[in-house]
């Protein structure tokens, strides 16, 4: 694991980026902005359009959200309890969850890119 100070700086840096990316993400589902209704914003055609127009921004959002969330979760869990075994478990947990989320998110984006370019 990186130094605690590095992780905390990472928390701040990703927080700043999230403020921008997440506002756009929520705005994409806000009625009356990009779509007339919330329900319209979650239709498959709208999702496809979002991947087409904001695909790489969604990847950036995924990465910063996962880092920010997991560094925050790690901090909370390590404040609850201390000890080398607990710390090793928490570190394993956040790395495992991070790999799962980044892997699944990337898979979804690549599948959508395939659908957009080769049909489906």
């Amino acid at each position, binding site marked *: 694991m990186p130094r605690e100070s590095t992780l905390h700086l990472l928390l701040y840096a990703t927080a700043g980026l999230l403020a921008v990316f997440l506002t756009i993400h929520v705005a994409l589902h806000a009625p009356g902005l990009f779509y007339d209704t*919330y329900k319209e914003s979650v239709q*498959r055609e709208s999702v496809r359009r979002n991947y087409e127009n904001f695909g790489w921004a969604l990847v950036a959002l995924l990465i910063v959200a996962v880092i920010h969330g997991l560094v925050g979760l790690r901090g909370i869990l390590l404040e609850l309890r201390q000890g080398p075994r607990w710390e090793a478990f928490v570190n394993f947990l956040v790395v495992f969850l991070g790999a799962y989320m980044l892997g*699944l998110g990337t898979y979804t984006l690549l599948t959508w890119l395939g659908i957009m370019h080769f049909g489906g």
Partner: protein
Amino acid sequence: MGEKRKPRFLENRLGIMGNIVPWVLMIRDNPERVAFVLHRLTGLLLIIYLPVHIFVTSMTVNPQKWEDFLRLEENPLAQFFLWILFGSIVFHGLNGIRLLLVEGLGKGIGKPEPPEPPYKPTSLSSAQRKWLYAVFAIWLIVWIVGGIILFREFGWV
């Protein structure tokens, strides 16, 4: 004259309940503590939701699975959760920006003074306190307005 009120002290070891339930905190004039607890609660909710959201989003590649999920969103409980989630994002975001300014950049906390009785830190009467009240006010307004828009669409109002 009434009985002199007993002084109340900040509890250093609040335990897990003190960190989870803001109502167990018997601390006067400490909205920062309430914001801390709310920031934690909303953060925990969001990190629990994030893997679920990524999993659900992966269903969009399969039209049938996505249709099934959208039917699930017709459930009033799911709609209510969406509103709670929206409120969590708004509070965590607004308070996060305040924390970035206060903790990250050291803005709005005033100048340090010699520690003389009654030991009231300048940071508690500086700009950050006003920012905190602004965070609470903007959060409640956005959350309520967002709720009205969402629940109107869902046919609740």
